[in-house]
């Protein structure tokens, strides 16, 4: 195969096609962000349910919650995505790539989030719950108005960390057909053969999002420590 006479030097390529690559890659940003946000919301809800089940008095509720957490933390997110995307058609349901991404990453993060919720709830002194109950609150109300508002303070830094992880995990979802930043990067590399500029640029885009988020997480962590 004859090599095509294309520019290959890094700066040459950056100069000639950098803007084109950048705008194409940024075209995937909405998908990346919406999957990250969507799966975070999904995980926040599912994770809370799992955490409450895990703290329940009934073994019948505790056991499935434990099994859920162990399974989703014990297997790679990529395999989970593949089971949903390629496996579910086998049992008669074909989810869309976007659904797979949000549900797959969300279920995975929910397992980690439920442990964060649990630790946060357990860190609130028992006396708080007892006091609320003795004031005549139902357990649900006590959880909602007394325990959770206090627990959120300690949970905020780890939840920020989970959102960073989720944002980075969106780089996996090109494997299930979502056209986000990495999918476009791969497509551009196939078209132009300029892997160096494109992949480094994609990396820079991720860093522009994750480094500020990590700063926020560190600041929240410091604030929490000062408060405690």
């Amino acid at each position, binding site marked *: 195969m004859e090599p095509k006479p294309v520019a*290959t030097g*890094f700066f040459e390529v950056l100069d000639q096609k950098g803007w084109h690559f950048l705008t194409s890659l940024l075209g995937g940003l909405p998908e990346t962000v919406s999957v990250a946000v969507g799966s975070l919301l999904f995980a926040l809800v599912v994770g809370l349910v799992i955490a409450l089940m895990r703290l329940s008095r009934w073994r019948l509720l505790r056991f499935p919650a434990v099994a859920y957490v*162990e*399974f989703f*933390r*014990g*297997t*790679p*997110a*990529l*395999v*989970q995505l*593949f*089971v949903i995307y*390629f*496996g*579910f*058609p*086998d*049992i*008669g349901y074909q989810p869309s790539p976007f659904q797979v991404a949000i549900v797959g990453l969300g279920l995975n993060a929910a397992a980690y989030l439920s442990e964060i919720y649990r630790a946060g709830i357990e860190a609130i002194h028992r006396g708080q719950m007892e006091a609320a109950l003795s004031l005549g609150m139902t357990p649900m109300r006590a959880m909602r108005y007394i325990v959770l508002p206090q627990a959120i303070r300690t949970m905020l830094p780890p939840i920020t960390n989970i959102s960073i992880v989720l944002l*980075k*995990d*969106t*780089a*996996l979802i090109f*494997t299930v057909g979502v056209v986000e930043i*990495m999918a476009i*990067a791969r497509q551009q*590399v196939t078209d132009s053969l*300029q*892997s*160096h500029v494109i*992949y*480094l640029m*994609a*990396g820079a885009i*991720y*860093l522009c999002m*994750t*480094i500020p988020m*990590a700063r926020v997480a560190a600041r929240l962590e410091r604030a929490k420590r000062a408060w405690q």
Partner: protein
Amino acid sequence: MLQLPGIYAENIHRWLPELLYYSLTTLNIAWASFVLAVLIGLVFALLRTSRSQLLRAVAVGYIEVARGLPIVVVLYIVYYVPPQLMPGLDWRWLNTYLGAVLGLGIHGGAILAEVFRSGIEALHKGQMEAALTLGMTPAKAMAYIILPQALRIVLPPVANYAIGLLKDTSLCSLIGANELMNDAKSIAFAEYQPMAVFVLAAGIYFVMSYPLSLGVRYMEARMNLGR
């Protein structure tokens, strides 16, 4: 009623040996990149805590970048970028296996550097001074006073990192490394049995990682006893 058309679990006897064979590659990648990550982590933890501002800045730059990038992106950059950046050199040594180990090692090095730093910083200087004043040699003080305390801080997060790493090796299939995930993909699509094969692969990952996480829990419980 859900139909379950053609999930042929009876083919397990053909798939399982092959998948297990490739999970050895997974374990190899995991442990090689673990060693690399520990080495990189130690070096950058020392740089990060050094007195020179320049060295500290270098360490912070590396840590922020390598931790902030998705692992897939690190793998793609390590495997595809250098040969094109420096086409004059001979890049035949950079096969998918080495690319996987380098990529995971670079990413893990940044994580472990922060872990080791917290271990170093948690130790009060006074400990070493007190040990020396009591007539211990520096080596003895290190072995009996400093290291046992540092290990207690560092070991649980390192073990958690190792568990994460084992699962992250599945990403190496995306640059074509021939490990468990890649083999599962090829069986699944060759035999049109994605559900059965990927669930089986998930099971193998679980069997590999669960004992590790039980070990971590046991270790953490034992360490908290001493408090």
